[in-house]
């Protein structure tokens, strides 16, 4: 309860006591309440999720400065409630420079639902890829500085403290056990990245918006959000049998990339790509130290958005390619994915039917997400849909028994 007070009441008090009538100021408070219920279609129709959400956005602007706080609460029927700040930052808006300091979600790139140059905010995968993207991205403590010249901008981001990907808890239906024998022991002594200046993450982006094309060029020096599993084998002194020790450890990654978006003849062409240097991959070669090997990889996408018979469609083709590939690497040299989106509005844009799919080309697995959104009245929305997994292995096929039907009832204020 104390945390609740600190997150919600404190920003309100701050707004109320900040009294400087000489400068134009405004305060807005918006947000939503939502019920999200998901039921697994197989087995005993277990609840995949039963969540009530309260999400509040408080924004105060006074002249050239502003602050925003976005506290939220997730209430669950069968686990501890979650209270946190999705974002909480201050803005300083100068003539050609914007400065943002605090916990913030930062989004880069032109891809939809795929993370290539969009690497600053780590992902919350505790509910896999199923929540809205605003809820998947974890806010990071950062300093962001944007310098503008017309429709060109230069953005610099300093993340002083590393935040890793949030993975599902061991009792979650989305938890995937690492592929090691049950006898393997885990050593978490290296899992944390020490909080110090030399462990900062730095990013730089140039972007331009023109009539012909929108372009982004970026570079970054960061930590791999996902830990590498280092594997060592030793002989147990008590049993004399070999024992595997798995040590999760985060490593630095450097990347450079870019993206573009251009309209031509009623269609929008998009592209995004990045070259990552220094990624550790697990290997099956027992001769390798810790059974890991360091390689570079490229990750790129081409996309096309168009409208056909009043149906909006979007197609993306994505490839992840390990450079200087070694046959012992557990991951495949190339990993190809296709995403497909089609949507159409009905009843004066109050009813929307949508189908979004991820299709994994390597394992023939897919995640198919049909949904219907109906605006019952202004700000009051009902969503109903399915998450269907196909295949039997790989990114999507491993959840073949997790098909679900869900509803979201949301009131925005």
């Amino acid at each position: 309860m104390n945390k609740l007070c600190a997150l919600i009441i404190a920003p309100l008090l701050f707004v109320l006591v900040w009294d400087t009538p000489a400068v134009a100021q405004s305060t807005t408070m918006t947000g939503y309440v939502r019920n999200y219920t998901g039921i697994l279609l197989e087995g005993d129709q277990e609840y995949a999720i039963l969540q009530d959400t309260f999400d509040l956005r408080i924004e105060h602007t006074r002249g050239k400065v502003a602050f925003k706080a976005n506290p939220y609460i997730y209430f669950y029927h069968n686990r501890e409630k979650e209270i946190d700040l999705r974002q909480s930052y201050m803005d300083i808006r100068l003539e050609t420079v914007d400065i943002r300091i605090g916990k913030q979600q930062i989004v880069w790139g032109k891809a939809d639902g795929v993370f290539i140059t969009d690497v600053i905010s780590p992902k919350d995968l505790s509910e896999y890829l199923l929540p809205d993207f605003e809820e998947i991205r974890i806010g990071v403590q950062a300093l962001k500085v944007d310098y503008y010249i017309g429709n060109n901008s230069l953005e610099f981001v300093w993340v002083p403290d590393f935040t890793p990907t949030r993975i599902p808890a061991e009792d979650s239906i989305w938890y995937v056990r690492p592929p090691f024998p049950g006898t393997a022991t885990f050593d978490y002594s290296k899992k944390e990245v020490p909080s110090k200046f030399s462990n900062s993450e730095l990013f730089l982006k140039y972007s331009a918006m023109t009539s012909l094309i929108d372009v982004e060029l970026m570079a970054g020096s960061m930590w791999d959000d996902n830990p590498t599993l280092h594997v060592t084998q030793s002989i147990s002194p008590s049993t004399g049998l070999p024992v595997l020790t798995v040590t999760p450890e985060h490593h630095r990654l450097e990347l450079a990339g870019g993206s573009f978006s251009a309209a031509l003849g009623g269609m929008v062409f998009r592209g995004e790509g990045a070259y990552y240097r220094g990624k550790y991959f697990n290997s099956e070669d027992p001769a390798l130290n810790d059974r890991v090997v360091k390689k570079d990889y490229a990750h790129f996408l081409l996309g096309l958005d168009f409208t056909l018979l009043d149906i909006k469609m979007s197609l993306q083709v994505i490839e992840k390619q390990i450079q200087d590939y070694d046959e012992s690497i557990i991951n495949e040299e190339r990993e190809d994915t296709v995403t497909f989106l089609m949507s159409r509005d009905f009843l004066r844009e109050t009813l929307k039917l949508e189908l979004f799919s991820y299709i994994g080309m390597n394992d023939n697995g897919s995640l198919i997400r049909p949904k219907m959104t109906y605006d019952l009245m202004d700000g009051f929305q009902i969503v109903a849909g399915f998450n269907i997994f196909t295949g039997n292995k790989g990114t999507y096929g491993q959840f073949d028994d997790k098909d679900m039907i869900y509803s979201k009832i949301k009131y925005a204020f």
Partner: protein
Amino acid sequence: MALIKKSLVFAVTLLTVPFLAFSQAEPTGLKIIENVYHRPTSEDMQGDLTMTLTNAHGETRVRRIHQFTRDFGQVEKKIMFFQYPADVRDTAFMTWGYDESGKDDDQWIYLPALKKVKRISSDSKSDYFMGSDFTYDDLGDRHPADDVHKLLREETLDGSPCYVVESIPVQKDYMYSSTVTWVIKDKWIAVKKEFYDEDREHLKTLAVKQYENISGFWIVLHSQMHNIQKNHTTDMALTNVKLNNGITESQFTERMMQRGGR
């Protein structure tokens, strides 16, 4: 002979002058629509737009937008910030429209849930704007050369003498088979317009409910589009209008879209 010649010239002049005077008083349909199209407008404008959609059962939905426009000569830029309903608040929509024939508008949308500005393809001119009774083409300035115009008659509408002009599109597959427009004579404001569908049936009627002279420019402040076939109405009201307020090019950027107009 000279006298006969002079008399003939005088007689012709007498007959011709009234005819010329009548021609000047009653311009062609094309000229009337050109006068509406070329009516002086401010270089920039900002204001709050409220759309109220009313269905056949009398149920209403409201959309509120804060918008900025500026004419930069060859390109007109427009940025709209959605303010209501709450679930679309802070969504921004930007258009750069070009005078150059055949060049499509550039359009971008900022969706706060995605925190990303996305380039989108130009909406079809026949699409309805935000579920209203206005198509994108209804909201734009249709070029006079796109239709063949004919002056049907003159009549008084709500106390204002008007020209009534029928316009038939040059493009045969256009969404309307014809439109009929009532234009106030001395102000060149189209105060009423009837739209006829592809089957030549009366589809909808636009009625201007309020207009005002602001800083020397005639501005429509309230108009209503009634779809007769579906008995659905959209009221569009413009408030807090500011003209020639010195809106700069920096207003029409990705930065402003992300900032939500603040």
